[in-house]
């Protein structure tokens, strides 16, 4: 397949970084125009920002800006002329206070691994990257409460906690790059929501900087605090449009020693649903992940990743990755054995394997977590993250497959345990004709089945227009009022979430 280079010069740095990816650009500004109320940066502004963050916090280098302006999927590209790397909450406050007064639009950015174009500018918004604020502030080994700055990388936090016998209650494929501030701002769901719940439950406190530079200290680390309105919940999932998260207090669970992973093959989707029921019944309190991968997704990841097929003889349509985590290996093994025997006897699975050691466990997870990257290597990808009632979930996939025919490959996988489908359409190129067949069909179908057009990825730029498929007009109106109240000049991540 020919590599298609967009009409930009690739710098050596850019080329190396983008080695295995394909270069596509969807004109972000095709339907949206720059809000001319926003100021354009001048030398005074740059001088002022330099005074706030110092020379090491000010980035104008073309190569670094190129990377920061482009999202992980290489689908959205902004034209920020300036990237700021504040080193403290005070610096963030000063940046926002000044930006508000000058009406300079800003994009808060973490690991830039978001999938809806929410972490990169649409036009020339200034990028405020939190990556330099990466200290772990404190950890209480009795309560398991961790307090850290927003720029900490998720995997780093998890490794820190592992040393102490704890774990981060969130896990996702982007863990090596994503930052906790971004996870909080997008209310990331991840692979173990089925066991540990969402960030709305695990985050005990936040420190947020508002658009006028006010530092809102809600960083309590109390398990229970019913004093007044729980405002931090507003910022969890607000995608940086209501305030910039600068510090986080999280309740972390014990890291339990006994982990088992099964990779199982099912003939049809009905079996997958019954498997979820049986898993809940037999594995109950030790179930920690329930993921599904259809055969198209498995083929895609095996082709582009070098992993081997866990079940080379199985030619089934559906595969399940089921994980248990518990405190006692022999108890869990017994539960798992009973579960496996039951589902084999009932014919719900036709084949499968249980990992015999940690290396096999990580092999199976790499397969599941590598699908997104594999899709990126395969060409253009249209990504949809939908919450659909579990019984209807796969119908959309089959309908879409028929609708698109040979135009594209429809690939499906996701957190079946949460009713969350990751629907991906893979084509050699981005194509207006193709997208016309997909949208708004996918959104309309989801709305008709009372689902959500964004289960966990958020709205960002990509779905800013799509909120009405899943929220009532009254709800959206109230959201607009809150936004106007908290960000009167509209400088925080404009053009996103609510268009």
């Amino acid at each position: 397949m020919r590599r298609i280079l967009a009409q930009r010069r690739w710098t050596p740095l850019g080329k190396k970084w983008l080695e295995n990816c394909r270069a596509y650009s969807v004109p972000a500004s095709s339907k949206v125009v720059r809000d001319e109320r926003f100021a354009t940066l001048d030398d005074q502004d740059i001088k002022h920002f330099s005074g706030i963050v110092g020379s090491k916090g000010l980035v104008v280098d073309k190569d670094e800006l190129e990377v920061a302006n482009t999202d992980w999927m290489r689908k959205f590209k902004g034209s920020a002329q300036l990237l700021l790397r504040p080193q403290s909450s005070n610096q963030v406050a000063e940046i926002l206070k000044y930006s508000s007064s000058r009406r300079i639009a800003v994009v808060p950015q973490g690991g830039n691994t978001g999938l809806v174009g929410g972490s990169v500018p649409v036009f020339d918004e200034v990028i405020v990257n939190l990556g330099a604020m990466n200290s772990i502030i404190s950890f209480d080994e009795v309560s398991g409460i961790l307090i850290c700055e927003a720029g900490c990388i998720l995997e780093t936090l998890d490794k820190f906690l592992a040393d102490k016998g704890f774990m981060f209650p969130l896990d996702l494929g982007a863990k090596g790059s994503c930052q906790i501030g971004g996870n909080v701002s997008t209310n990331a769901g991840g692979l173990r929501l089925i066991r540990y719940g969402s960030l709305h439950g695990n985050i005990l406190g936040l420190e947020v900087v508002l658009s006028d530079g006010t530092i809102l200290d809600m960083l309590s680390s109390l398990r229970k605090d019913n004093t007044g309105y729980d405002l931090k919940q507003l910022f969890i999932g607000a995608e940086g449009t209501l305030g910039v998260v600068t510090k986080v207090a999280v309740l972390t669970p014990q890291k339990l020693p006994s982990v088992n992973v099964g990779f199982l093959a099912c003939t049809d989707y009905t079996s997958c649903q019954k498997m979820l029921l049986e898993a809940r019944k037999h594995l109950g309190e030790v179930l920690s992940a329930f993921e599904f991968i259809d055969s198209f997704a498995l083929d895609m990841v095996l082709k582009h990743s070098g992993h081997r097929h866990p079940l080379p003889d199985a030619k089934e349509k559906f595969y399940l990755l089921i994980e248990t985590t518990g405190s006692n290996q022999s108890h869990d093994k017994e539960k798992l054995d009973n579960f496996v025997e039951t589902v084999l006897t009932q014919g719900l699975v036709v084949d499968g394997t249980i990992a015999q050691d940690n290396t096999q466990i990580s092999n199976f997870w790499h397969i599941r977590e590598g699908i997104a990257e594999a899709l990126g290597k395969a060409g253009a990808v249209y990504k949809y993250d939908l919450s659909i009632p579990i019984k209807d979930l796969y119908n959309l996939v089959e309908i879409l497959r028929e609708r698109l025919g040979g135009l594209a490959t429809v690939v499906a996988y996701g957190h079946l345990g949460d009713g969350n489908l990751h629907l991906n359409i893979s084509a050699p190129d981005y194509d207006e004709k193709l997208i016309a067949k997909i949208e708004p069909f996918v959104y309309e179908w989801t709305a008709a089945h009372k689902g959500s057009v964004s289960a966990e990825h958020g709205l960002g730029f990509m779905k800013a227009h799509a909120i009405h498929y899943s929220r009532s007009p009254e709800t959206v109106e109230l959201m607009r009022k809150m936004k106007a109240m908290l960000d009167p000049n509209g400088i925080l991540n404009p053009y996103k979430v609510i268009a």
Partner: protein
Amino acid sequence: MKVMVAVKRVVDYAVKVRIKADKSGVETSNTKMSMNPFCEIAVEEALRIKEAGRASEVVVVSMGGEQCVETIRTGLAMGADRGLHVITQDSSSLFPLAVAKLLQALVSSEQPRLLLLGKQAIDDDCNQTGQMVAGLLGWPQATFASKVSISDDKESVCVEREVDGGIETIQLQLPAVVTADLRLNTPRYATLPNIMKAKKKSIQRVTPEELNVVIGSDLEVLEVTEPPKRKAGVMVASVDELLDKLKNEARVF
């Protein structure tokens, strides 16, 4: 022809080990234990030999406390036919010579034509057991095998060995001892039907006394300590400073 494979239960390869506070050894309680990776490769090779029609039975043997049964079950789940468990009070007194003597006794009662082992265990890195048991049995040995081919008449085996100088190919008369190296094969995953079948396969228990082997040890572990922590790197401010440090501290030139 019968193939016997010896397997060892060790701390899982992917686990970050800790030393016990009294420095007597590595912390194994509450730590994930699995089959030694080289032993897994040996089991895989035995299964392939059977699938190629060169062997009729694969027997998996392990030695130690009760938990060894899990490791034997893994071998059975991969496809081995039978298990043998030599029960000892605890696994920590089983040094290679003791294991070799026990294997010698088992070989004389089971009469396999091929004894497969991993080249070494990842906990002690001894790389001795295969060699010792071959010596005790008076059998030819091929260690660090990267390819194993049993002859059509099942009288000899051709083995490619990974040695420092390259690959050495030797032919041995059966019965023989072969130890497996990393590139010999990629072990299969244990599939559900085999995992279920494995529960019904027999694991015979036997004690060292029944085998007439006295387990003593000529080795005493004095102390186990962590290697010294890597020193942090030093940031230099200029090329001149770098040159100065290279010359005067690292004494590179």
